[in-house]
């Protein structure tokens, strides 16, 4: 660390207003070369706004942006890039129609003679970057076929290509697997050693404290505090972010079983999510939260998708509340069987962003509650308000478009859609991804409330801690199959991880390496 060197990034009195919202107000930030500055704050605090302003994606309403001493205020992403800014944005920004390699070199191809593509060097460089990050995506794979995690890795590769002076990582680890996370930390340290200025944004406070030199806390668009990382503790950070001490959520936790009955709400037999995968047999009782733990890409979402009628399983039988039902072929059919899903991609699968939140909450119920198919708005608003109250969504949000809600509120709306349904089976996929600490607690309490009212909840999350803490029972998923049922005894995270990585001595576990996703399997062998 060289405190004498001139700052790599300097934001002076930057403000950015959106209609109705001041997302950033009088924000000052100086980042020196060779340091890591973390930005933390709850959802909507303005962290990504800092990134967008710095990277030239948006023009600040007031204030100046300097990169390496040059003024780049509002001159667009190309200018910022020339000044050495490399960004991994929070939203996924891959071009689906292009290959992985093209995506990495998007806007920064390696050229021969200044005009022709130097394919060989790009391929070599791609391989280097991939090895560095421990990423195994073939260079010619279409980005369309990538999982979220893989796409995220590509974006990190893109940011690492070329000569970065400033590297901005906006929630880079929100959806990448553990192994890659560790590699990323190493790379961050390595880059720091080389004098790159790094801005790091994450909701994982342990990670933040681990990686960064300085931590700045934002709240409501204003920088509340900035201190060296050693000056912070996790509780202090949370207090600063929220402006108060968080209320303890209603703690469920594995093993504490207030209302669990012995009535199975969901029984799944001989389910194969794809022709190659192993059979799944499991059941969920009323009143319990079952956590599906798995690594990224292990097939948890696929299992939920089969149950919710999003994709046909290749085999299996299903009983809901003791009744044998035909396997649902559509979400509408699943809902009739009593199975509802809060999907993982809330922006595309969860909400109609152009509609007001109230309409979103009312979407599943309006048909059944309407008389002669004619809507009563007052009734609808009433229904929406009661759902909103149950999930802790402020009622002022009801009139806003879903588009304009923060991530946490959007997630509450996704849960709220189904809350009044009283469905016996409630599937919840990654409800806390990218959601701040406070909202997470509220979401956990909503899930527990659901279970308490007699629903069977299946809960998927990539945060192992979270699964362990908030489920009554944990199932380990690997390659599209349940490799271990831990029952009502809490596994420690080491045992769980071992099961997830397939180092488990369980007899029935570990189907062949590449049996889950046929398209991937083909790709592997065809090279």
């Amino acid at each position, binding site marked *: 660390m060289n405190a004498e060197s001139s700052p790599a990034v300097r934001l002076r009195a930057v403000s950015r207003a959106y209609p109705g919202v001041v997302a950033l107000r009088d924000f000052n930030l100086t980042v020196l070369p060779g340091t890591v500055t973390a930005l933390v704050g709850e959802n909507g605090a303005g962290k990504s706004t800092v990134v967008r302003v710095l990277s030239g994606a948006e023009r600040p309403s007031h204030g100046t942006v300097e990169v390496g001493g040059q003024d780049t205020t509002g001159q667009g992403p190309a200018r910022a890039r020339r000044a050495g800014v490399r960004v991994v944005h929070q939203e996924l920004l891959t071009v689906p129609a292009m290959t992985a390699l093209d995506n990495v070199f998007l806007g920064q191809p390696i050229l021969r003679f200044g005009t022709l593509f130097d394919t060989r060097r790009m391929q070599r460089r791609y391989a280097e970057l991939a090895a560095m990050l421990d990423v195994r995506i073939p260079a010619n794979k279409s980005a369309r076929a990538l999982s979220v995690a893989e796409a995220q890795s590509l974006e990190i590769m893109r940011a690492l290509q070329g000569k970065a002076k400033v590297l901005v990582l906006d929630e880079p680890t929100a959806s990448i697997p553990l192994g890659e996370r560790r590699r990323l930390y190493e790379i961050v340290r390595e880059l720091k050693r080389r004098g790159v200025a790094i801005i790091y944004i994450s909701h994982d406070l342990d990670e933040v404290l681990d990686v960064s030199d300085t931590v700045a806390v934002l709240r*409501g668009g204003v920088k509340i505090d900035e201190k060296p990382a050693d000056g912070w503790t996790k509780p202090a950070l949370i207090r600063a972010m929220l402006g108060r001490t968080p209320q303890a959520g209603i703690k469920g936790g594995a093993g504490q079983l207030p209302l669990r009955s012995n009535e199975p709400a969901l029984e799944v037999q001989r389910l194969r999510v794809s022709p190659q995968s192993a059979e799944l047999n499991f059941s969920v009782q009323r009143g319990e939260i079952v956590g599906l733990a798995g690594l990224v890409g292990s097939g948890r979402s696929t299992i939920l998708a089969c149950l919710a009628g999003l994709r046909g399983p290749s085999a299996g039988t299903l009983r809901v509340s003791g009744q044998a039902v035909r396997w649902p072929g559509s979400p509408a059919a699943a809902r009739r069987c009593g199975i509802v899903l809060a999907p993982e991609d809330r922006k595309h699968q969860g909400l109609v962003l152009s509609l007001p939140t109230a309409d979103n909450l009312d*979407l599943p119920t309006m048909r059944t509650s309407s008389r002669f198919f004619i809507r009563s708005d007052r009734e609808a608003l009433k229904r929406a308000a009661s759902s909103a109250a149950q999930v802790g969504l402020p009622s002022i949000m009801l009139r806003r478009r879903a588009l304009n809600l923060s991530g946490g509120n959007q997630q509450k709306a996704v849960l709220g859609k189904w809350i009044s349904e009283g469905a016996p089976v409630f599937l919840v996929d990654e409800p806390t991804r990218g959601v701040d600490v406070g909202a997470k607690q509220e979401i956990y309490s909503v899930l527990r409330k659901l279970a308490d009212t007699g629903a069977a909840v299946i809960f998927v999350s990539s945060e192992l801690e979270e699964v362990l803490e908030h489920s009554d029972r944990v199932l380990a998923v690997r390659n599209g199959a349940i490799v271990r049922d831990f029952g009502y005894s809490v596994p420690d995270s080491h045992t769980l991880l071992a099961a997830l990585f397939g180092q488990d001595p369980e007899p029935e576990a570990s189907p062949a390496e590449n049996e889950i996703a046929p398209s991937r399997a083909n790709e592997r062998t065809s090279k």
Partner: protein
Amino acid sequence: MTPQTAPAPNEPRSILARLSTGSRSVGLRYGMVLLLAILVVGVSTAESSFLTQSNLLNLALQWAPVAIMAVPMTLVVIAGGFDLSVGGTYAAACVLYAYLGTGGHWGSSEALLVCAAMGAVIGLINGLLITVLDVNPFVATLGTGYIVRGLALVATGGIPVIMTTTSFTNLGSDSVGGVPIPVWILLASLVVGAFVLSRTVYGKQIYAVGGGEEASRLSGLKTRTLRTSTYALAGVAAGVSGAIIASRLSTGDSTIGAGIELQVITVVLAGGIALSGGEGAMWRAAVGLGVLAVLGNAFDLMQLSTFWQSVVTGAVLIAAIALDRFGKRQGLADQTTPTMFISTSSGDGFTAPGDRSTAPSSNEGPNPTDKELV
């Protein structure tokens, strides 16, 4: 946590801001309505004959086929779709109606139903191509349009079919209560369309599908059925319009209505309905129709060259949609949302600044974070 610290310095400015936003919002949101009003006032001042009943009825009669098709086209566009095949269906229905009007076996109302049914079938095919085969709506309907018009040409050999059963001309020429039947059909479509869109479950589902197909599907909506239904309705309307024009001309002409599909879409777009789906309203289509009809009439009344009409139509189209886009960028997004929640309560619908209530505000009172900010 002191609840008294109201953000005093902000209040006056925010009221001002709200007001100015309000008037700008009206200007942007109702820009086309304003244009229509200006046009109506201007033309009726310049030409006293404009506001006569006979002129207005004639105008309505003249635009009836396009307008009748514009009503379900509004649904198609709001549901995120597009239909270029209505021109072909229109021509085919025109021929079919005239053909049924030569034999004498069919009554004219049965013939109308047959035309509507044929339109529905074509619409269904469009819908299936688009939702099941996943063909882009533009391409699918361009294709079926070619096919249907081609079949109409083949069936007639391109030669007009002259209707002989005289009762078949009633549909296009008779009046009920002084208003021609096609105008009644047009008014009925508009009213029913507006009601369906704004007051029924189906209408709201159309908005939902257009605004986010995947989310709607996961909410249990039958998105394929919904989208297909809009194309079927567009087909029915094209069938009815084709029958009307055949009846008015007492001739079935397979070459009729070349380019009428673009006219229909122009009407919808001139109202400021975005092609991206999920937004819009029937009154907007009606306003678009009004602007184009009055403009055309003005050109006729004032004996201006009809060539300028094309120029002006183009300008109106661009202005309408630019106004809409500009409005959205100015953050009036919430106000243009097609929801009764918002439009019926425009007073308080404005978003309060600061989406900060994200914080776990379990208490209903003012959000604590607000205070420490200002």
